[in-house]
């Protein structure tokens, strides 16, 4: 067997994930997290009539982020993740889980060089890419605006 044949052979004998079943689980858990977000949204609107939608939205995200962080600390979120996969990675709670789990993992190297330095090991690229792309879009928007 050469390398190409071996790769094809390995692909053949590798067990397949149950695609539909795992998609369904991701759909349900992901959907429920979003539903929770919508519920919080309605609740905050009722409690805080003076807030505008942007502020309410920030509060909802913050609540979800905090909840996911606590669940990570209690060792529950990784179990949810084992069940749901993308269903709990894609929501903002997954972003929070990636930060808190790294913070916990590296705590033993100290607060500065462990927790603080490694917190964004997984989530860092999200902020870097997000900020960069927003600035790029902003630059385009600004230039276009000059000519309109």
């Amino acid at each position: 067997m050469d390398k190409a044949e071996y790769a094809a052979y390995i692909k053949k004998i590798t067990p397949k994930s149950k695609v539909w079943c795992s998609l369904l689980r991701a759909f349900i858990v992901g959907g429920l997290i979003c539903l929770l977000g919508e519920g919080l949204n309605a609740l905050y609107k009722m409690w805080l009539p003076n807030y505008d939608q942007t502020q309410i939205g920030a509060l909802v995200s913050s609540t979800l982020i905090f909840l996911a962080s606590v669940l990570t600390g209690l060792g529950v979120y990784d179990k949810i993740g084992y069940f749901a996969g993308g269903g709990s990675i894609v929501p903002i709670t997954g972003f929070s889980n990636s930060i808190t789990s790294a913070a916990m993992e590296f705590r033993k190297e100290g607060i500065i060089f462990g927790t603080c330095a490694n917190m964004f090991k997984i989530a860092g690229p999200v902020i870097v890419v997000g900020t960069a792309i927003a600035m790029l879009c902003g630059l385009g928007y600004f230039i276009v605006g000059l000519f309109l």
Partner: protein
Amino acid sequence: MIFLWAFLIGGLICALGQLLILKTNWTPARILVSFVVLGAILQVCTVFEPLKKFAGAGVTTPITGFGAGLVKGTFENIDKYGFIGIFTGGLTAMSAGIAVAIVSGLMIGMLFKSRSK
């Protein structure tokens, strides 16, 4: 009604993420990054706002909402303050989420020990 759509649309976005995980060898970090980019693109194409009216938290809770929010904030700040808005807009709009993520991560990281199950 918006509750139903939040569940359905949110669930679909997450299922799309799961499909990417299953069909590609992408790491979770890469999935998160691509959804942020997707959100930003949807915002620029002015598709995101109507989606948000329709499905609410169904599109803002997935990390796509983070990308869209960054772009939205940038545009709004440019409208308000001009050139400087390019730099200040994005992170200002998303500051609450990032701040809470950092502080709760720090707090929980100091309080709890990680365990293998």
